[in-house]
């Protein structure tokens, strides 16, 4: 050891300051509401998983009983107009909801992160101008008209809805990330990377984006919920899910039934959807609180 080193060190005592994530996990665990909502969300995930693996609700399309049967031991929520088991259909729809929500959340967040980061890092340049313009354009198109246009253009493909949602939801994430990146790029560790000679795109992906993951996580959950809610309305309008079943379609079906006095279909879909959206929202709030460095629990 050099002489200076010997003079300077004593026992290498490190300050055990927790990172953002471990602090967040600790705070989250202590958040009752957060933990309960997480439990609910995991419950839903399990249901959707079971459907995908074929454990249950496989017979959602079969005509299993008579018309508009009341809830019974055989059909827990009763049957619909054609005699299909409402419970099975509602459960199956959970899978659809997760599929839509997940695909849209992941892709929209990823695109938003990438474009937002590039736009923010090169803020003020032509790249930034283009991305901002794009965001502006997409934000000014009314959402449902946009979806209708895409559905038409994609010749009734079942993925039209996904494409439309991703194309509009990424802008929210993009703006947030752009703002954060503008802030981060002025920090000294980014200057240090420049001084060392790290190529610019490497700086974005190695140094800047990893420091935005807490924002991305929260945004992903918000997008997930937005996707599910949008899907319900789109399916109701006939622009959404084409093959398969979703809560939106069930509600669309039930609009006639309600007038005839049969509520099961409507209630099953609404309650299940409401449950998932509420739980996910609360989970998202709790996560945001946990990640907030200023909140002392």
């Amino acid at each position, binding site marked *: 050891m050099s002489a200076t080193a010997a003079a300077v060190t*004593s026992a290498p005592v490190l*300050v055990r300051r927790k990172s953002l994530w471990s602090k967040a996990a600790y705070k989250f665990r202590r958040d009752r509401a957060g933990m309960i909502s997480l439990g609910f969300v995991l419950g839903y995930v399990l249901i959707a998983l079971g459907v995908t693996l074929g454990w249950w609700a496989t017979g959602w399309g079969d005509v299993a009983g008579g018309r508009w049967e009341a809830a019974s031991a055989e059909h827990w929520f009763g049957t619909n107009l054609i005699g299909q088991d409402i419970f099975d259909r509602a459960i199956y729809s959970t899978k659809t909801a997760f599929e839509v929500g997940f695909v849209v959340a992941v892709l929209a967040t990823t695109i938003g992160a990438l474009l937002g980061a590039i736009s923010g890092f090169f803020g003020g340049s032509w790249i930034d101008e283009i991305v901002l313009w794009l965001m502006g354009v997409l934000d000014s198109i009314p959402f449902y008209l946009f979806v209708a246009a895409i559905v038409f253009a994609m010749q009734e493909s079942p993925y039209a809805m996904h494409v439309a949602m991703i194309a509009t939801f990424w802008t929210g994430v993009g703006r947030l990330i752009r703002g954060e990146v503008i802030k981060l790029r002025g920090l000294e560790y980014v200057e240090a990377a420049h001084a060392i000679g790290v190529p610019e795109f490497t700086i974005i992906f190695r140094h800047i984006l990893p420091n935005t993951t807490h924002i991305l996580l929260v945004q992903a959950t918000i997008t997930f919920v937005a996707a599910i809610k949008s899907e319900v309305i789109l399916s109701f309008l006939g622009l959404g899910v084409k093959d398969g079943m979703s809560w939106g379609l069930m509600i669309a079906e039930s609009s006639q039934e309600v007038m005839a006095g049969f509520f099961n279909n409507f209630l099953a879909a609404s309650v299940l959807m409401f449950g998932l959206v509420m739980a996910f929202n609360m989970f998202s709030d709790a996560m945001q609180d946990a990640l907030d460095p200023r909140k002392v629990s």
Partner: protein
Amino acid sequence: MAIERTPLLSVQDLVVEFSTEHGVVRAIDRVSFDVYPNETIGIVGESGCGKTVTGLAVLGLIPSPPGRIVSGRILFQGRDLAKLSESELREIRGRDISMIFQEPMTALNPVFTIGNQMIDVLMVHRGLTRRQARGASIEMLDKVGIPVPGMRIDEYPHQLSGGMRQRVMIAMALSCDPKLLIADEPTTALDVTTQAQVLEQINKLQEEFHMAVILITHDLGVVAETCRRAIVMYCGRVVENAAIENLFRRPLHPYTAGLLDSIPQIRANRLAELPIIPGRVPDLLNLPDGCRFAERCCKVSERCRRESPVLEAFGDAGDCVACHTPGMPIRETVDV
């Protein structure tokens, strides 16, 4: 010291704790000192030693939760400030005891003119009319050395430089003629030349207004120039309380001596290496038994590790120190 004077402010065995997610942290631990009228005393220490918490505690400004005054007394003009209610404290703040802070930009409201803010203070505390308050404010701005006060009173904080804003803060703090001014690192955020101006201002005003001043700082140079007496804090405790001449010439506590040695100073013969205090300040969550400075002390003994020293009087100048073996070598003044 022949005359027995009553202190203006007497802090006795003050303890302040904060609840954090890792447990309860004792930010200051049985801090005691006296401040006499018309005297400037400095509270010196490094970050985390508790000097700011002490200043805030006097005025009941500790954010609660998560902090609170656990025990101890803060005697001011016969009343224990620690026991007063929030409304009683509000009457004292700004009128009998004032405080100025390090960052004038965040202490001043950016959407109101400085005139507005000063006039409000005067109208609330001295019951003046708006006209009278405006006149008094302009006078005050002039006293703190702000040129063309009649115009500047209608400006917003962002239109003023750092040094000016700090002077506006001082003007606001002094507008009600307080008996005690607590200044928490008032010049740390300022340039050296501006710092000189602001310190000079504080000194002048202290004489003119006959106030006592508690100057909280980490800069021993500032203390040497402005204070009559200094209190050195380490890790939440007072380790030395001495008259300025004594403190610099013959420090009593090894920490004080170490600090004085390690500060870079302008000297005729440059040192190849600066003396250092080895090690680091202990974590407040993980305090050692015994003396908190033991790990870094040059004359540590077994007793120091076991037993925490108590603040005791030393000599006859009213100095005290918390050390089992107080007294450090006499320091020669540095040749320039």
